[in-house]
């Protein structure tokens, strides 16, 4: 007897849609990282100087740091509920390539947390004195950067899913790995503002993104198997 298996793409789509529906019903949780993002960027003018021309110097970096922290905040609960209620176990047993299902879940997570950060960034950037000419590069760099960060964070969340006090540990694991993103992302923004071409750092960000996209699911599925099997 041959069992009929759902095509992988359809299964991944189901996972994606399920997460979107769940998020839609608890939209206040989705909004929290976004509020955090705005609050953190508000702190910098208060702590340093309200002078916009001085803030402009560090504006790109501040937006990037805030986006990094905000997307970390939302990552902790990424796999927890599914591992606790046995959903992930069913995925492992389903015969589907686990990496694709997890990638679909991470993609839903990115649409819910990464994308709003990207869309919000020009507004936040304006508050820090970033000129309109830098908006495009800021959004492009964050688009690539938050995508990579969601995958890296997915690996971290999969590793720490069964751990006490996982959120602090997750930040400790993911932040050092995310440093290159921070460097390239904020460099791209400041190069654009200095009148240089930001193509170099943006291409490097894209390269890192595609590497994370190809290798990330392997690491994520290995980590989830470890968390589920015992």
């Amino acid at each position: 007897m041959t069992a009929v298996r759902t095509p992988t793409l359809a299964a991944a789509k189901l996972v994606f849609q399920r997460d979107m529906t769940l998020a839609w019903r608890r939209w206040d949780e989705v909004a929290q990282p976004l509020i955090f993002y705005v609050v953190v960027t508000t702190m910098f003018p208060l702590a340093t100087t309200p002078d916009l021309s001085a803030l402009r110097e560090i504006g790109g970096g501040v937006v990037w740091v805030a986006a990094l922290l905000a997307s970390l905040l939302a990552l902790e609960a990424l796999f927890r509920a599914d591992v606790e209620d046995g959903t992930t176990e069913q995925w492992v047993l389903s015969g589907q390539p686990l990496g694709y299902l997890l990638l679909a879940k991470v993609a839903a997570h990115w649409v819910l947390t990464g994308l709003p950060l990207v869309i919000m960034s020009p507004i936040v950037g304006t508050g820090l004195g970033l000129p309109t000419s830098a908006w495009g590069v800021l959004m492009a760099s964050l688009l690539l950067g938050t995508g990579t960060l969601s995958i890296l964070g997915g690996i971290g969340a999969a590793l720490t899913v069964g751990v006490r006090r996982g959120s602090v540990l997750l930040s400790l694991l993911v932040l050092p790995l995310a440093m290159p993103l921070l460097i390239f992302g904020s460099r791209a923004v400041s190069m654009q503002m200095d009148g240089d071409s930001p193509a170099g750092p943006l291409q490097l960000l894209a390269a890192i993104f595609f590497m994370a996209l190809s290798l990330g699911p392997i690491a994520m599925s290995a980590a989830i198997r470890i968390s589920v099997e015992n």
Partner: protein
Amino acid sequence: MSWTWFHKLASPPHAYRILGSLAPWFGWASLALILLATWWGLVKAPADYQQGDGFRILYVHAPSAWMSMFTYVVMAVAAGVGLVWRIKLAHAAAAACAPIGASFTFLALATGSIWGKPMWGTWWVWDARLTSELLLLFLYLGYMALRASFDDPQRADRASAVLALVGVINVPIIHYSVNWWSTLHQPASVTKFDKPSIDLAMLIPLFLMIIGFQLYFGWAVSRRLRGEILRRERNANWLKEAA
């Protein structure tokens, strides 16, 4: 040719015995080499024409920086072997490497900072090599924190192995990104450390010191791995017979 001797290496009782007999060789050889290199480096080698005697901290700084990266690679390879072939001893070896690597990294950072004070006039410079070394320390600390947060040793082994492998892919990216960032951020004059040709009289003690550090690593890993085996096999029969 029979490979049984090789397969035996993965069995805890054999490894425990072999490591026990290897450790003193590593230990004494490293002590002798480090003492020789210390004397050579501090007394015999000439002072630097630019930095005077201050450069002599190089003999601790460079070997520990080298060892900090070497240890990470050894740890990741051991973790990968443990993950693929499910060899418990390889996981134990990775666990034994981490604190040693973190100590080497800390030593490299501390000596670099002490060196920086007279040379650059400040304890800390956001220099590329210093920064990537600092990030390496964070990677070690994250690895150790993840390992410590599991109650079940087998899960701790495998989870931290995945992290070590992700980390080892990232180390070159971090290194080059930091290099690039630093060259854009500060003028090259600050890090004027171009030694086009380091004098042979200075180089020989450096090589001796690096070999000495490597042997020290062998000694420390042997000792730690024996401890790790004892902890993991504390209920095993062979230990009761041996004791």
